[in-house]
């Protein structure tokens, strides 16, 4: 059995191993660490905003640096690595190959992340994760900004390397008996998200270099004081980072495709519609980037084009929701913790998507742009959908990774707290945005609606915090002392469906048995 070792390996052997499960484990531990650090930052921000005036953070500089670090951490150091963790664990198994295509490249891709994290966290730049010029060129203090730029550069290279690995593993190393159409949907999700990364990321890599030379005064691409155009940066940035939204959300949907059929005890309603939706999403992802920029003074025609491009992505997402619901139909659903997270994730995914349709209707941008509506909207995506799918999958993989079972009762408590907290926090943020509160503000005037809603949002965030503390305790306690899991069927669903079980790690003693 993979999870039992004849001989415990020294920790350094796991750390510097190139086997996909070991690299996956490193990715997972790192991403969870980043999640807790980024979450602590979010809590600090929410305490500060609990009421007008100074609560916790004494000056706006620290606040600005915190929200920048929070955004960068959650996107690049939590969500991307956690998706890579799941992919590393399961993609080779699903395509029936012994490892990733390039194991050393895989390890390199992981080991680029911690130094980048050090740069981001030590510097703590203050320009928001969007680093919009000319602020980031003429106003953001050094060396924090340079450190952020170098850190992001490394993270970009890391995710390109990881993506190459996934694409090659799936396309070239899959078992010859397995046609591409038969590749499981989780692996398909990694194929499509990796292709998006390969197409989108180089643009941002270029933009970062241009930003750096601009800051050094050597060029003036984005610096209007010397004739550049800051809007050009917005285009380059969003050309990468709108598709990046799909890079984050597609693996999470893939994870739900893994969880939902298992716990519904039925196969996926339509494998081909899932594949089609992934392929469509990875194409239309590139048709909508400038809907982030309606307020920069775009013409009516440009706005119309990008509104249509945005709406075009909706049917594909709706196909996924349909597929999930149709899979659950007539099933016999066991609501173990992973299934709860997946179903909760679908519910919030729909809410986030509906909010997105409202956002893209051009005139409504005058209400929602850069307000708390937007904050609520994308948090429903990144927390409500992507993190929900990921956390559910962490619970799902837990027996496989540790050979032990997590505490089911506390897992359910964690889910309920996180779901209730997310609803309170993020739906209230939508409404707060309608009352005109801008995002990224350190303090706000005593407008009664703003004061009461901010207090409510902070309470919601505290509820999530309690859930996450329970999660952390559950992870630590259960991996140390949890009950041994029945690896053939850890969730008691009947059948030997749990195929991570079959995987062997040659680096474990005795050939991995």
């Amino acid at each position, binding site marked *: 059995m993979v999870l039992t070792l004849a001989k415990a390996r020294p920790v350094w052997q796991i750390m510097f191993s190139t086997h996909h499960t070991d690299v996956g484990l490193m990715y997972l531990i790192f991403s969870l660490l980043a999640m807790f650090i980024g979450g602590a930052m979010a809590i600090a921000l929410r305490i500060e905003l609990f009421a007008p005036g100074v609560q916790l953070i004494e000056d706006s500089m620290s606040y600005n640096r915190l929200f920048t670090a929070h955004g960068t951490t959650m996107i690049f150091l939590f969500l991307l690595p956690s998706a890579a963790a799941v992919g590393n664990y399961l993609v080779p198994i699903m395509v029936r190959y012994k490892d990733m295509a390039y194991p050393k490249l895989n390890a390199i891709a992981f080991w680029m992340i911690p130094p980048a994290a050090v740069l981001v966290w030590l510097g703590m730049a203050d320009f928001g994760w969007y680093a919009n010029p000319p602020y980031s060129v003429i106003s953001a203090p050094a060396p924090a900004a340079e450190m952020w730029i170098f850190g992001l550069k490394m993270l970009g290279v890391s995710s390109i390397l990881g993506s190459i690995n996934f694409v090659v593993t799936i396309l070239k190393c899959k078992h010859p008996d397995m046609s591409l159409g038969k590749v499981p949907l989780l692996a398909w999700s990694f194929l499509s998200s990796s292709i998006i990364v390969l197409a989108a990321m180089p643009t941002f890599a270029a933009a970062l270099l241009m930003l750096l030379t601009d800051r050094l005064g050597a060029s003036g691409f984005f610096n209007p004081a010397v004739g550049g155009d800051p809007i050009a940066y917005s285009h380059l940035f969003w050309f990468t980072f709108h598709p990046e939204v799909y890079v984050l959300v597609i693996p999470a949907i893939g994870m739900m495709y893994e969880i939902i059929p*298992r716990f*519904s*005890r*039925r*196969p996926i309603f339509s494998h081909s519609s899932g594949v089609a939706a992934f392929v469509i999403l990875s194409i239309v992802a590139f048709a909508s980037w400038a809907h982030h920029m309606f307020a920069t003074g775009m013409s009516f025609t440009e706005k119309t084009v990008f509104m249509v491009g945005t709406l075009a992505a909706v049917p594909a997402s709706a196909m996924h*929701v349909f597929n999930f*619901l149709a899979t*659950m*139909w*007539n*099933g*016999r*659903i*066991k*609501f173990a913790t992973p299934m709860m997270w997946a*179903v909760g994730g*679908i*519910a919030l995914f*729909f*809410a986030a998507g*509906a*909010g997105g*349709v*409202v956002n893209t*209707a051009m*005139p*409504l941008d*005058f*209400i929602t742009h850069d307000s708390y509506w937007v904050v609520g909207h994308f948090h429903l995506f990144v927390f409500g959908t992507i993190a929900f799918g990921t956390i559910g999958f962490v619970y799902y993989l837990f027996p496989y990774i540790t050979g032990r079972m997590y505490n089911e009762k506390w897992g359910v408590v964690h889910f309920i707290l996180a779901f209730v907290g997310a609803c309170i926090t993020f739906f209230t943020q939508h409404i707060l945005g309608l009352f005109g509160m801008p995002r990224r503000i350190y303090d706000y005037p005593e407008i009664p609606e703003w004061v009461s809603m901010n207090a409510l949002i902070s309470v919601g965030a505290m509820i999530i915090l309690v859930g996450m503390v329970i999660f952390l305790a559950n992870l630590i306690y259960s991996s140390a002392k949890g009950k041994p899991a029945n690896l053939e069927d850890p969730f008691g*669903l*009947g*059948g030997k*469906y749990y195929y991570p079980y079959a995987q062997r790690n040659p680096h474990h003693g005795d050939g991995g048995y």
Partner: protein
Amino acid sequence: MSKIFHLSIIVATLCIIPTISLVFAAETAGEYIDRKAEIWNLFFRMMTVAFVVGGVIAGTMVWQVWRFRESNPKSKPTPYEEKGEL
């Protein structure tokens, strides 16, 4: 299947053309357009659509979760389970 698909697109288009012409005609002379009212009215129309669709989807989900849960007295093993095809 594709017939239904095409039909629904045609029906949708037929609904929109009169709407557009109606609003085109509604421009009143002399007074300035009330930007605030136009935008907020659009917002509330959109929210009506969103909440109706959301209600249907969320309702379906809640019902499914209630009906197909393992502990529901009516739940029975799926065919795949019985055949051991999981």
